């Protein structure tokens, strides 16, 4: 029983991290058909932002306040990644609309440059971020110890998801975003500034990547190539979940996260990945567009 609880929890934990990373991707891909390979590096930027926040707290502020650095680090990571995303969108991505494969290659280049920048600034070795002491330890459920850190991440992801939901489905900006997603030309005709919506959406997606980076600092040391470990899995979430609706991304992340943990427990790490991949290919035989696809009468959507 306790093994089962632990496996389920681990699966949930992996899913939540995947979800946080895939959330931004799904939105930019769904809205702009841009494959952002530099997303992993935006995660890395978020992680280093947390690292810097920690250092500032350590050096400048009294030690009694140190434990609260993480509360500040989350918005800081979001903002810094947001700004990076905005710059990226305005300087490069907007020339690549309608060329998804080209955007993939160009953003890969951006990723390379950002990684090397991080290596030049912070050095190639990984750096450790001290987690705040209130996140150490865990809670015992059904005989299994669930670490607070992972619980915290799950909570954080739920919060982000909720915020995204309200942004997309309950705010004016979100309505514009959905309009552009569903019919760009018509939205533009009705006075929606698609340029602005694109820029905002991309920046928000990047900001969420920043939060993901912040969360990852809780799980281990961080390095310049932090994002690359997760990026392909996150894209698989998007492929599996389909684009256009949040619920698809959630299902995709849960599916991959839980199956991955299960298969890895039953077999081993490398075979588990193979099985997950085969399952995804098999699933796509049934639903080629993923769990949730936006209905459209257009042929090439």
């Amino acid at each position, binding site marked *: 029983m306790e093994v089962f609880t632990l496996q389920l929890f681990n699966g949930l934990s992996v899913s939540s991290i995947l979800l946080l990373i895939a959330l931004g991707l799904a939105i930019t*891909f769904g809205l702009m*058909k841009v*494959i952002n390979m530099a997303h992993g590096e935006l995660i890395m930027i978020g992680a280093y932002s947390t690292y810097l926040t920690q250092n500032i707290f350590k050096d400048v502020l009294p030690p009694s306040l140190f434990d609260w650095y993480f509360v500040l680090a989350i918005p800081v990571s979001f903002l810094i990644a947001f700004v990076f995303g905005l710059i990226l969108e305005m300087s*490069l991505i907007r*020339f*690549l609309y*309608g*060329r*998804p*494969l*080209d*955007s*993939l*290659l*160009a953003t*890969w*280049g*951006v*990723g*390379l*440059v950002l*990684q*090397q920048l991080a*290596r*030049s600034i912070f050095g190639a070795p990984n750096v450790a971020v001290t987690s705040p002491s209130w996140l150490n330890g865990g809670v015992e459920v059904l005989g299994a110890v669930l670490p607070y850190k992972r619980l915290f991440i799950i909570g954080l992801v739920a919060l982000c998801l909720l915020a995204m939901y309200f942004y997309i489905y309950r705010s004016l900006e979100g309505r514009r975003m959905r309009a552009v997603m*569903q*019919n*760009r*030309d*018509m939205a533009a005709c009705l006075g929606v500034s698609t340029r602005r919506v694109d820029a905002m959406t991309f920046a928000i997606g990047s900001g969420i990547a920043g939060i993901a980076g912040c969360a990852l600092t809780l799980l281990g040391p961080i390095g310049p190539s932090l994002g*690359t470990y997760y990026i*392909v899995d996150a*894209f*698989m979430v*998007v*492929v599996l979940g389909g684009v256009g609706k949040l619920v698809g991304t959630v299902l995709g992340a849960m599916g991959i996260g839980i199956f991955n943990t299960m298969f890895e427990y039953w077999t*081993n*790490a*490398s*075979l588990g*990945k*193979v099985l997950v*991949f085969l399952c*995804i*290919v098999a699933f*796509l*035989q049934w639903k*080629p567009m993923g769990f949730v696809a936006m209905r*459209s*009468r*257009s*042929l*090439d*959507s």
Partner: protein
Amino acid sequence: MLTLKKLTPARIWLLIGYAAAAAALFSAPMFLSDFRLNLLAKFLAFAIVALGLDLIWGFTGILSLGHGIFFGLGAYAMAMYLKLEAGGGKLPDFMGWSGLNQLPWFWKPFENFGFAVLMGILIPAVLALFLGFFTFRNRIRGVYFTILTQALVIITTTLLVGQQAYTGGTNGVTGYSKILGQSIASSDTKRMLYWITAAVLIAVFILCRYIVKSRFGKVLRAIRDGENRVRFIGYNPAVYQMVIFTISAALAGIAGMLFVLHVGIISPSMMGIVPSIEMVLWVAIGGRGTLIGAALGAVLMNWAKSEFSTTYPEGWTYFLGAVFIVVVVFLPNGLMGLASKFKLGKGKRRSEPEHDRVEYPAV
């Protein structure tokens, strides 16, 4: 476009150009040191992958980020043969370290050179056919397909690293001494291998050219420019996509086999995500949709890499990143596109490929 009947001046110049290039390739051993020759041979092997990639990306509009795997599987097939030949009946060293005391059954047939070569072509081809069968038929294409190929890279490399006893793990397979009884390190063998590589490259180039110029190639370009229209006319694009993807993977396998012969090692890091996407960059920089561009791009990029990456490792990464961005944004047709813009190519050029241009869907 050009037939034997029409010997226009442009075509004559083109033929002279090809003949000169072939002559230069074959006479290179006379001018280059053994070290340089070995490097060039490696670049030529890469050019073969680039040709294969160009067939599916440049001509069919499908971007595969999985060619490192096909390349690597070909390389592993050859490496297994070389390892067994070097061992001379003894167990490969890494198997002993991992506690195996008997040669696994699937290693046995690789003692035969012919079998190894056959597998080096067939395994990548079958894997590609498998993936293609389950994706193209369901009209999974564009970026979805690209992401799946990338996932294929990840799982294959983790599998190779994980099954250390059978694959040599992270270190890969290395330590060869003989090929078909000849010492692999001697400069005579090396020269021979170079010539073989050059000959294979030329043969592959001619094959690709034949494919591209044929009716089949015309359908491929049509798929690139408007898959649905091709379908409405009555073709089944999936079949064409599968066939070309398989051919492309087989070419990558051939390249991998040649690569191992020149470099003497294959490991998972040589076939992972990064090498796979770099292969795409060679095609992009040379000019997708032009065969000669793809081959030249591969040689050029690798030459630049071997010149600069060791002296300026940091600068090289920045440069590489910048090349990705610049080529995509400013030079979508690569150096060949640039050349034709400045009328360097004398003959009339095909109109610029306009693939990847997906209109935003109207609901």
